[in-house]
């Protein structure tokens, strides 16, 4: 019988296990006032890394504020913020090597920024102009960039999870000294793909970090209606993988956990699960109104756990940041984002010819025929197709 991993302890009266049998502590390093807990073991971090992390947080906040505004003004059709979850996203991204591969869900623009996605690139995607790497095919926020090893976002939830296992397994086969990180929400962790992806990673031994942003809600559905177990972390243990639960609003805890997860995954060719406990401070998306399902008091309570503020206090305590510098970083990014909006929204949309590209490696005869007929049609009714009629 090949039950090797199961232990052999026996009992002789019925005794069930429950979620309380599984003690899952939560890693915290930073206190609310920006000092660290006594005995806390800090991540590897110097002033340069700290500055880059903080800079990414501020950029992301500014981007979120400005783009939500742009959505309200009707300049873009849709937006999703990372507000409240910056530490989880930036802290994890900062622990990686630039050749590690990122498969994100959709609320992780901060990790893409950390990798070096420019303000212009963000805008080109959101305004679907001809410089968008995704050729204007997907809704705003569905970024992707192969140069930065960041897979393009797909809307169907959870699909990236087993894919990440595949990417990581290929890294192992190719002998690359890299890992894959896969982000998802606690809601997406209910999808079948989650279970398939984790089980395969554990059994096939793939160096992948599963990073769950447990932010309290999936659209309107609170965690109590999403799962009844001991969070998402208990499932990592259940699948037989190294697992840790961290305070997702604590930059240093997330950084430390991800640094060690990466080292472990590489050394052992094995997956790790990180559950970051955080809170979605904003609405689910620009189409959502959270007042229909949660209270202002609840939101106000979580405002006090703002991960960016907590990290800022630490930086100030260390003497690595001054209040005046902070103000100027904000200002710099406000101007930068605003200027980029103005440029991006004036650029033309991708050429109509691109409509049939990338369906296959080369367009099929049927697609070419359809494009030809479409162009003939548009030239008959140019007013009905203002985005393409002038440039056939």
């Amino acid at each position: 019988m090949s039950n090797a991993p199961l232990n052999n302890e026996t009992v002789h009266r019925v005794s069930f296990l429950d979620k309380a049998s599984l003690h899952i502590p939560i890693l915290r390093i930073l206190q609310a006032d920006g000092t660290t807990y006594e005995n806390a073991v800090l991540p590897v971090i110097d002033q340069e890394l700290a500055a880059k992390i903080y800079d990414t947080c501020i950029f992301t906040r500014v981007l979120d504020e400005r783009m939500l505004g742009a959505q309200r003004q009707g300049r873009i059709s849709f937006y999703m913020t990372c507000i409240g979850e910056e530490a989880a996203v930036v802290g994890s991204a900062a622990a990686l090597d630039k050749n590690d591969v990122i498969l994100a869900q959709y609320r992780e623009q901060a990790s893409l920024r950390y990798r070096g996605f420019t303000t212009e690139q963000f805008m080109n995607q959101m305004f679907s102009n001809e410089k968008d790497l995704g050729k204007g095919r997907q809704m705003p926020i569905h970024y992707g960039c192969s140069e930065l090893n960041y897979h393009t976002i797909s809307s169907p939830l959870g699909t990236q999870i087993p894919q990440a296992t595949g990417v990581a397994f290929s890294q192992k086969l190719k002998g690359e000294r890299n890992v894959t990180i896969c982000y998802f929400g606690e809601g997406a962790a209910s999808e079948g793909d989650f279970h398939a992806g984790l089980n395969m990673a554990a059994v096939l031994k793939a160096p992948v970090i599963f990073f769950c942003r447990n932010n309290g809600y999936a659209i309107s559905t609170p965690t109590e209606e999403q799962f009844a177990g001991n969070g998402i972390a208990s499932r990592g243990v259940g699948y037989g993988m190294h697992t840790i639960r961290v305070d997702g609003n604590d930059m240093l805890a997330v950084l430390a956990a991800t640094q060690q997860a990466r080292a472990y995954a590489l050394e052992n060719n094995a997956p790790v699960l990180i559950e970051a406990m955080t809170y979605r401070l904003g609405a689910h998306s620009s189409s959502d109104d959270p007042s229909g399902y949660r209270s202002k008091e609840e939101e106000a309570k979580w405002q006090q756990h703002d991960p960016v503020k907590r990290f800022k206090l630490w930086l100030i305590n260390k003497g690595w940041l001054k209040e005046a510098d902070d103000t100027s970083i904000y200002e710099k990014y406000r101007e930068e984002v605003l200027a980029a909006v103005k440029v991006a929204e004036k650029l033309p949309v991708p050429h109509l010819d691109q409509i049939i590209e990338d369906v296959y490696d080369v367009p099929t005869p049927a697609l070419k025929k359809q494009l030809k007929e479409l162009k003939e049609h548009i030239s008959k009714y140019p007013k009905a197709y203002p985005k393409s009629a002038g440039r056939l």
Partner: protein
Amino acid sequence: MAQMNMLHAINEALSIAMKADERMVVFGEDVGHFGGVFRATSGLQEQFGRDRCFNTPLTEQGIAGFANGLAANGMTAVAEIQFADYIFPAFDQIVNESAKFRYRSGNEFNVGGLTYRTPYGGGIAGGHYHSQSPEAYFTQTPGLKVVVPRNPEQAKGLLLAAIRDPNPVIFFEPKRLYRASVGDVPEGDYQIELGKADVVKQGSDITVLAWGAQMEIVEKACDMAAKEGISCEIIDLRTLSPWDVDTVAKSVKKTGRLVINHEAPLTGGFAGEIAATIQQECFLYLESPISRVCGLDTPYPLIHEKEYMPDEFKTFEAIKATMSF
């Protein structure tokens, strides 16, 4: 009669059905207290309690499998899939299980009490993943009924019939009409028979056929054609599986011409099935080839949505071309 939009009509149908049938439950992602992301299930949890209208975890595969289990045990299950684009994780449970429960067991078991409701279609700047019309995948599966309403009155009557039909039904709701389509809806309980097409407008020169949100488009195209002196007979298929061959064939025998419009891609779309059948039924009556005006054979694009759509201008051109063949 009361004026209401399609969401309101759907909500009313659900409420009427739940009142009449205490075994009926409604569930899906965010459908509980919040009332669904489009608000189709608003107020049902307050009215019928958490046991009968509730949120599920975020798993379409789970929702469909769970629905099969409920229905197999005699419940009336109405499951919402938040967007038709996300029905694919549930594909196995729907096409292999819901569709075949009765057949494979010799009717020892069936899931006749099951209805899937799901918003489909484009025109809302949703890109692929929020715009697809996946009906053809399901029309190819024996054992499922597929229904698509065009306005609030139809939505209420067809949904009530779907919920009470003793077969699993997929009810595709045209999301771009949810709030945009407002009209008179009869009070109280009524049903519109499944499997019957609706001749929306009589005409003599050409039959123009569509369903769901595309009905608006073909009506506009037929108005344009009327100005050129072309008399269009407009048919709303309403139920795609099983579809009403007789009504369509009768119309085409009268007009001698047929244009079919749908939003899904041309290749493998349901228009192909209709064209083949009508060609066989009406061969000697046809004055011109049957024409299809459909989406392109590409995923549904975001920025070129207008270009992709089988809109009124493309339909009008197809009508003219068919007339002058």
